[in-house]
């Protein structure tokens, strides 16, 4: 019977394969082998989840460790689909990298709950919510860099704008997913899906700013306005993530966790 005791075997195969693909993507133009190894690692990991599910007689989604399993699983899946569609190698290597971090966390700390998590934070939404946001922040950060480059060397015919659009679409999709999962979670924990807490307000501002970008770019218009908005949106994003704690409006925020 498969249990957590066997995790290291499956995870070891997965980590080995994904490391090979990761290095392969970084070094080579053609990445056929990377795809093969991504698939083998993925199957090994999926197999463990399936067998664990059968053994537990419930979906393994209850504890932190279990949700981390799914995170790595889906991340690589999404990364691969995005690669297959757009040929973005960075997306595949990036998701492999983050997925591996979560596999390693599960090897080092497979425990049920991380210690001293206040009850409101103990939820199956915790991991997917946070990671969707972190991933989207990273992608939108990349979009900002590409956007700044275009503003600096402005050229009406620059092809980079297509790349920027795609980055924003993907990053915004993840941002929305993170926000929606946060809403569902907040409902279960506090009884409100959206309470306009300062952190939530700034998350709204951020999402709306990217929404502005997406809509003003519709049909390939307003390149320059959109690029400026990208910069503003990223400033809003940083305020949401780090800056809220310093604002006068955040004195009573429930999302500013005390230090201890």
């Amino acid at each position, binding site marked *: 019977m498969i249990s957590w005791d066997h995790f290291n075997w499956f995870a070891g195969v997965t980590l080995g394969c994904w490391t090979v693909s990761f290095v392969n993507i970084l070094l080579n133009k053609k990445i056929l082998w990377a795809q093969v190894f991504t698939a083998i690692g993925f199957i090994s990991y999926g197999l463990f989840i399936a067998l664990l599910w059968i053994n537990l007689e419930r979906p393994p989604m209850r504890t932190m460790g279990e949700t981390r399993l799914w995170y790595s699983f889906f991340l690589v899946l999404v990364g691969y689909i995005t690669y297959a569609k757009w040929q973005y190698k960075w997306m595949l290597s990036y998701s492999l990298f983050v997925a591996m971090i979560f596999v390693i966390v599960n090897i080092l700390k497979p425990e049920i709950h991380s210690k001293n998590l206040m009850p*409101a934070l103990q939820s199956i939404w915790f991991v997917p919510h946070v990671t969707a946001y972190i991933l989207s922040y990273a992608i939108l950060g990349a979009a900002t860099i590409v956007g700044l480059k275009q503003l600096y060397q402005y050229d009406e015919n620059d092809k980079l704008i297509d790349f920027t659009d795609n980055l924003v679409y993907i990053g915004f*999709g*993840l941002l929305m*997913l993170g926000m929606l999962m946060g809403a*569902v979670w907040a409902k279960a924990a506090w009884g409100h899906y959206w309470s306009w807490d300062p952190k939530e307000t700034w998350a709204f*501002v951020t999402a709306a700013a990217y929404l*502005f970008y997406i809509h003003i770019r519709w049909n*390939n218009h307003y390149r320059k306005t959109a690029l400026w908005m990208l910069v503003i949106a990223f400033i809003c994003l940083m305020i949401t993530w780090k800056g809220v704690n310093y604002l006068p*409006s955040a004195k009573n925020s429930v999302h500013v966790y005390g230090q201890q």
Partner: protein
Amino acid sequence: MTNKQIKKPIWQKPWHFTETILIVVGIYLVGMVLQLSVGTFKFSNLAWPLNIIIGGSGIVLILLLSLRKQSSFFQWLSGVPFSVTLIAALIIQTIIMGITPQLAGALTHKPTVFDTLGFTRMTSSWPFILIYFFTILALTAAILNRLRIPKWRDYAFYLNHIGLLIFLFASGFGASDMKRYVMYVEENAEMPEWRVYSENKDVLELPIAISLKDFIMEEYAPKLTIIGRESGKSIPEKDPAYFQLADKKTDIEIEGWTIKVDSFIMDAVRNSDKSYREIHMPGSCPAALVTVQEKATGKKISGWVCCGNYAQLYMPLMISDKYSLVMTRPEAKRFASDIEVVAASGEKVSTTLEVNKPLKMGNWTIYQYGYDNDAGKASNYSSFELVYDPWLNAVYFGIILCALGSLCLFWIGNKKRKERNND
């Protein structure tokens, strides 16, 4: 045709950004006039069925407009300039809201300019409500516009926009029908409780009664820390060190002291001689026997520390004339209530309620809310939040559509746009 449009006189159709911005500023000003004359918008005034009448007729109006062929007004209403300008208006208002502290209850001070303008209650201010309303109208128009020639390849557009429309409608207009109360229930009371407190602390009676069979609480093991005896602050002051007690015994180091935990009891009661023994009973409290050694001098001190609770004394260990070793109060790991709920309809449910695991009964949802913080584990009551929200299922439906739409954003990208440009 990016920025090189032929100049046309203002207000001549088709309207573009200049006209649109003027119109949205106009909407905002109308809202401001209402705000200054009528005062803050009251959601309760929009309670069922008024919300569905107003919201519904707005949408029907747009539907009728969309049936007219080649209405340039409808083209504008459903177009990008209007939606982008509305989104910009929302951004500006929410930025103001994100900077200004928001008020929850009634105004207790003399109104400031910000209060009068509605900035301190942004989501109930007239300009915000009007912009929200027009966003719903624009969204409806955009959806209907696409639906004239439905295409499968527009699936992502439909999921995102219909999902968002349902969500915005149900969460905004639905807010008027939402009710939220807190109920305090004593353990093993003779009668089930049905009295609740509203947000204004009025006492009301509900068609739902709850009895509490058991309040369950688990705590994390407490932490050890060294505090300055005068300041009461943990050291090092810049980055206080806390050590989580656990079953495993390890040596800890804090700023020139080594601490050895000789024994640790989660449920301890004090003996007459200042030592502790393990007893599981209400009022027991974590305690630890520790030996502290000052590294510089080699001096050793040992003794019991206890964090104290309502029944037992707090016990620090003096380790020098400047510092003491103390134990922090344990933090809650999980709290839950074994309850029985009886609805007026006669429906009965027994369950264990805990944070993140609410109970849904019809349009009511019951949440674990709090307990007697001073008594902690020994709390003899538990409090629940009861939320009535008939729009909740619609909200979730909207969320699910939006989530599917967001997933689609991973691959639709700008491919469509290029196709369109070739049209």
